[in-house]
Each structure stands twice: as structure tokens, then as C-alpha cells.
């Protein structure tokens, strides 16, 4: 197993009486796309800010690239990041903006056009940044994050303002980055987006980490089979006795067994052995959204978009 590229312990940030991030212990392994998920104001951007040395933690420690604790400049040279809305010099063109950042990073100017091309901005490269649409600004932000061929890339809400086609392009780009051996830390409140591109996620709520793990694991933990039988009381007893069923509960007149959908035939067989017959059966649609809403509570529902 790779050593974590990002590791935090007890990371906290307080602004006066307001706790933005509380006791965050996070571990992000090398390679793939890691999602930082949470409602607006949950502490995602503050966490990114602390990881990038922009915000001083009130407490806790950060370790990047398995180096000694802290956020040294040498580590930041290996990171590409766009935090919050893309901010560039409004009087400069997209190309000049990238040339400037390339210049202060000490990189090759030739990379600029290649990056502009990869995000579909080459045709408008000489237009002033102030004339760009929000989508174009986002694309320039992604290009900026890729300057200098970084090993670790932080993307904060990278699809904000993009049209559906643009979102799909950026998602493909992010997925591609994750498979090239780089690590992408993607912050988003778009659950559908995160589910589509992320391998692992951490879920923040009110500044606290409430869940972390592989998306597939988190989602499968929510897998369930909904069914109605000729004798629900007997069925509950029978299904509860199955060792691969974690829980059986009643919901909306149906029984809900916590079990993967692919074992539904086993469940049917077990009931049949006890003369209990299925009237209706369907797998419960599982998603990160459902999991998220469950672990964050109803308030998250108001602030987080479940998808497109």
C-alpha cells in the first residue's frame, strides 16, 4: 500500500468563536481521485487552504508527500491547485496569465499553449481574462492547476459554471489525471460529480470529518433489498437469521434488508424454505447521495445538490 500523499492529524481552524475545521484527521493515498465532500460551509476550502499553506491551522499537523510535518515551499512546488473561484489578473490574457505563473514557477513557457489547448481555450488565449465567461475562467483555472506537471492537484469546485458538456469534459480530464499516477483532491458539493470521478471520499460536515473511505465501500454499505411477503413477521425472523444480512427493518410498509442486491435469490430461497412467499421485491437504489444524506443529516439536504 502506498504511503499517504496527504496526512493530517487533529487539524483545526478557528476564526474567533467560529470553528471552521475541527480535529480533522485525513489520509489520502497516492494516485487516483479523492473527493472532499460536504455542504457549503463545511470546511472544505479552509482545509484546502491549510494544506496549501494559505491558512494557518489553529491546531494539528499536516504531512505532505510523507515528508516531515508542515507545508514547506518545496512541497507546494509539487502541487497544482485552484481554490475557490478561479482568480487571475483581469487585464492580462489567458495566455499571459499562465505565462506569468509559469514564469514565477520557473517552468517552460512552451507548456502554456499545450495546456490551453487541453482545456479548449487556445482560440481565446489572447483575450483578456476579464472578458471570459465563468466556464472559460474555470477552464483556465484547471490549466493553471496543471502548470508545472504537479504530482498532487487540488481542485475546488472545478465544474462550477460549466455547461453539461463542459462538466463532462472536465470530469473526463480529472479522471484521466487520476489514472496517470497523480493524485487529485477534488472538493465539491456535487455528489453526483464526486461519485462519478472519485475513488475515495472524505465527508465533512460543520468542519468535522464524519466519514472517509472508498466510494464503492461506502455505497455498498448502504445496499439493501426491499420486499413484501405473505407473512412479514415470519419473514423478518427468517431474514434476520441470515449471517450476511446486517439489519432488517420496516420502511413504508416494506421490509428492508441490508444486503447486496446480487444475493436477492438467496433471500428468496431462505424465505421459501419457511413457506414465506415473496409478493414484491426490488433492490434499493444505492448512491453516494443517499449515503451522504444519511450521515450528514437533513441540513445537508438544503445545502448540497444531489446531482444533475
Amino acid at each position: 500500500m502506498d504511503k499517504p500523499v496527504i496526512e493530517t492529524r487533529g487539524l483545526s481552524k478557528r476564526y474567533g468563536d467560529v470553528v471552521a475545521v475541527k480535529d480533522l484527521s485525513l489520509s489520502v493515498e497516492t494516485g487516483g481521485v479523492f473527493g472532499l465532500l460536504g455542504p457549503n460551509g463545511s470546511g472544505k476550502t479552509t482545509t484546502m487552504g491549510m494544506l496549501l499553506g494559505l491558512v494557518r491551522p489553529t491546531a494539528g499537523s499536516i504531512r505532505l508527500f510523507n515528508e516531515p510535518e508542515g507545508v514547506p515551499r518545496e512541497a507546494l512546488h509539487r502541487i497544482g491547485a485552484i481554490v475557490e473561484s478561479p482568480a487571475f489578473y483581469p487585464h492580462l490574457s489567458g495566455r499571459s496569465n499562465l505565462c506569468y505563473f509559469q514564469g514565477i514557477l520557473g517552468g517552460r513557457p512552451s507548456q502554456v499553449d499545450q495546456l490551453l489547448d487541453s482545456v479548449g481555450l487556445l482560440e481565446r488565449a489572447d483575450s483578456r481574462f476579464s472578458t471570459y465567461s465563468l466556464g472559460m475562467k474555470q477552464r483556465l483555472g484547471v490549466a493553471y492547476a496543471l502548470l508545472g506537471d504537479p504530482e498532487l492537484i487540488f481542485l475546488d469546485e472545478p465544474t462550477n459554471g460549466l455547461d453539461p458538456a463542459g462538466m463532462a469534459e472536465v470530469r473526463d480530464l480529472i479522471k484521466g489525471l487520476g489514472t496517470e499516477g497523480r493524485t487529485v483532491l477534488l472538493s465539491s458539493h456535487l455528489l453526483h460529480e464526486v461519485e462519478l470521478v472519485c475513488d475515495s471520499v472524505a465527508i465533512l460536515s460543520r468542519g468535522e470529518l464524519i466519514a472517509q473511505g472508498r466510494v464503492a465501500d461506502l455505497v455498498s454499505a448502504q445496499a439493501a433489498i426491499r420486499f413484501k411477503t405473505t407473512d412479514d413477521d415470519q419473514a423478518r425472523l427468517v431474514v434476520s437469521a441470515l449471517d450476511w444480512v446486517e439489519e432488517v427493518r420496516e420502511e413504508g410498509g416494506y421490509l428492508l434488508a441490508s444486503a447486496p442486491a446480487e444475493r436477492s435469490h438467496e433471500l428468496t430461497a431462505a424465505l421459501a424454505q419457511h413457506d414465506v412467499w415473496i409478493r414484491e421485491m426490488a433492490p434499493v437504489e444505492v448512491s453516494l447521495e443517499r449515503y451522504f444524506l444519511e450521515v450528514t443529516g437533513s441540513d445537508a439536504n438544503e445545502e448540497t445538490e444531489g446531482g444533475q
Partner: protein
Amino acid sequence: MIGYVLSLARWEWFKQRRRWLPWVLLAILALIPQAAIWGSFGSYHFQSNDSDRQMVFGVSGAGQRPIEAHGDGRVSGGRIGQIVPGGSVSVNCDDILSGNVPELPPGFPPEVLDDFERECRRDAVQNDQIRADEYDAFAFPASLGFALQFAVGFGVILLIVLTTSVVGTEYSWGTLRNVLARGTGRWQFMAGKATLLVFLALGGLLTVMALTAVSSLIAVSLTDTPVGYVSSTTWLGLLESLGRAWYGLIPYIALAGFATVLVGSSALGLSLSIGYYIGEQILSGLMSALFDWFDTIGDYLLGPNIAAWVSGGGGNTDGLLMGMVLDSPPGQLHASLVMAAYIVGLSALALWRFSRRDVGGASGG
């Protein structure tokens, strides 16, 4: 490390040269001294150097007494009204100095003209000096020193505007986050900006000198050189004036930079800096007038020391730094050390504040 800071300064210039603001400020800085140069030229060129001194030698009707009426209104020997018609001769300095001595009415010994001639010659020397001074203000190379003093007076305000903008827009545009997130050192980034601003200040002064040189050469070619004119300026003296003007501007870069970092905004930084600049002069003038003990404190304020330094210890710095006039200016060594202390102190405070500050998104202010 120095190479890195210089590299950051170079890339800062890459950004700044594409903005309107530095060029507009440079145009203002360069043009204002030209107005002064051409004003001096106009004053010199269109003003006659003839003396207006004249005398009337007349005789009274009654006793044939000689009456002398001077141009400044003094009358001796009687009253003007007593002079008989046709019994007077008017003499002016031009006549006397050109040897065109008139015949005086009877009763006047020829010696009376000697006194008048002496006065006329004294006037002529004074007039030549005044005209030489006026000429000096627009003639090359003395005009360069004159323009530099003018440029410092206005340059302080313009440089404060530029500094607060160069530093503050990084906050308002939110670009500071992008710069620092990629590992650019905080103090190195600020040092790069400060380095650029220091060199822009020098560039501004050199531009003023170049434009003034052109104006001067044109102006000189359009008029006559006054009699006995010798330039008051040496090339070495000019170089010293440039150095003094340049060093005199640097504390205001530190002041404006510190104010902007402190509040994280161009507009607020500008208000604080200009407020300090004007407030210091008003308050120090007021306090000095009210309390003797304030003179000691005044010796350590920024404005009086810069004014004394830029004036080269001449004391009268009229026209410099909002017309600050110093009765007892601080000494040159004292002034230069106080300025250095302000530069180091304000820069250190700005860097300390900047290195500890959390960097957020665009503030728009």
C-alpha cells in the same frame, strides 16, 4: 535568493506594464514638471529686462528751483505741480546706460546724473541676476534639478497610489492565493514587488529628466541667454540630486506597502498612506507652533527628514512635499538615518504581517 527576488520583480513588471495605471501616473509625473519649466520660460521670455527706473528733472516757475522727481514717487526740491510746462527733462536708465545723456534744464549740475546712473547700474546687475535665475529654471542642465524637486513633491503621492495598487490588487483580485499556493515565498513575493517599485521610482525620475532635457533644449533655442549666465548646476550635483530624490521616495513605498498589507485593500491602504502623509504635516505644523518640546519629536517624523534630505540641507524646501518649509531642518546624516529606519521598520512590519496573514479569496476592495 537575490536572484529569485529579482526574477519575481521581473515577472511583476511583466504584469504591471500591461496595466494603464503605471503609464498614466508616469505621464502625470513627467508632465507636471514640464508645465513648471515652460512657465518659467514664459515668464523669462515675455518679460522685458529694461529697467523701469526713471527721473524727471524740472524747474519751478517761481524761483527757478530745481526739482527732482524719482520714478518711485519721491520728489525733492518742491512739488511736481510747480514744474513749469516745458521746463523738465525725463531721463530713464536705458538712456543713461546707452550713453544718451540728455541736456538738463538750467540749475542742475551734471553730477546729479551720476547718482542716477549708479542706481541704474545696480538695477541692471539685479535684473541680470533675476533673469539668470529664471533662465536657470528652464535651461539645460540646471532645469533637471529643478524638475527633480518638482517630481519628488508630486511623485510621493503618485508612488503611494501605485504602491497601494500593486500590492492591494493581489487581495482584491484574489490572485495572491494562486501565487502563494504554488510555493512562491511570501516575503520573496513582497520583496519582488518592492524591488520593482523602487526601480519604477528611479525610472519615473529618469523619465522626468529626459523629458525635461528635451523641453529645456527647445526652450533655450527659442530665447536669448541672459548676460553673464552661468549654470548653477554641475553634472555631479545633478547626479546627487537624482540620488537624493530617489532615496527620498523609498520610505513612501515602505509606508504605502505596510498600510496596504495591514488592511489588505488598495483603497484602505491608499487612504491610510495619504492620510498619514497629509496628517503628519498638518499635525506637526500645529504641534510645533503650540509646543516647543514637539520640535524634538518632529526631528524623527518622516516628512521633515525627507524634505531636508531632498533639499540637500538647504533648509528651505518650499515646493517640496506639499510646500513644507523647515525653519531648522534636521541634518543630512540624521535625515538619512531616520529615513533608513523608517524603510527597515515599515518593511519588516509589512513582511511580518504578510507572512502571518491567512490568505482568502477575492475581496473586491
